[in-house]
């Protein structure tokens, strides 16, 4: 029984543990290309980040992390705060 449970945990748990995050942050104050560049460059300096995209129209910053890595909400808010913007919400998907 233990072996059976362990197998299930490995099969279903491992992909989640090593998968990448797609994080969508809704941000106030983004209005121009200079804003977008600042945010992109700020996140690209983070070793956990694979890609970042800024959507001015929908006020969204989409961050894709590397496999098995993530950025917690507090770090995202701190990075965006340091770039000069306010985070309204953070949503995640694996």
């Amino acid at each position: 029984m233990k072996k059976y449970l362990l197998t299930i945990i490995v099969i279903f748990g491992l992909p989640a543990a090593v998968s990448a995050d797609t994080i969508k942050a809704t941000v106030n104050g983004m209005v121009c290309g200079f804003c977008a560049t600042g945010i992109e460059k700020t996140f690209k300096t983070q070793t956990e980040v694979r890609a970042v995209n800024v959507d001015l129209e929908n006020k969204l910053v989409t961050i894709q992390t590397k496999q098995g890595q993530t950025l917690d909400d507090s770090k995202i808010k701190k990075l965006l705060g340091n770039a000069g913007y306010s985070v309204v919400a953070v949503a995640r998907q694996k």
Partner: protein
Amino acid sequence: MKTTTFLTLLLTTFGTALVSKAKPLSYVGGTMVMQENDETGHTISSDYTFTPTNAFGLYIKQEENGKEIFMLTPEFNTLLKRWNLPDGQGNIFNMTGAGLAHYRGNNQPCLWTAFLADYESRRWFFSYEPRFVWDGNIEKSVWQRTRIGIAPYLANYNDLNTWIMFQVDHHPAKRDHFVATPLIRFFYKTYLFEVGYGSNQHIMVNWTIQF
């Protein structure tokens, strides 16, 4: 060739306009180079943002339309207040420089400070900037500049942004006390370019690059 003449030529060659700063700060670690050539003279400045609210740089200006004063100062820019709104952003900045002014063989210490208040959405732009300049015993002056703008279409980050703007300057120390300048601004990613034509028949050309 006099140093000031050389620098004036250099400034003129690199563009035509005073720094109609998009904003006097970028992101931490970011550098901006700006040039402005307008009825007040030729300006070039560069600054490096080292904290979320502070930037340090160099400001060089050759004044025209009055006393042809040459100014060279380090510059310190501070974000005093920012409002991040759902559809826009408002800011109050202070920019201050202290250095050297040169006029007809006379070198004087100089000091200038300016406050820039702006509001920008993807559709609307408004700014107001009072500037106080002290050039030792050469000149003391106060300027005001205000600008409104509208984007005829809403562009995203990777699109060419276009703005139609109108600027009014009030500088009693200059020959033309009031100058109104309609202008057009193009903005693509981190490149900003503006061209306008003032009521005193001066062409204005500004550019900013952020990297």
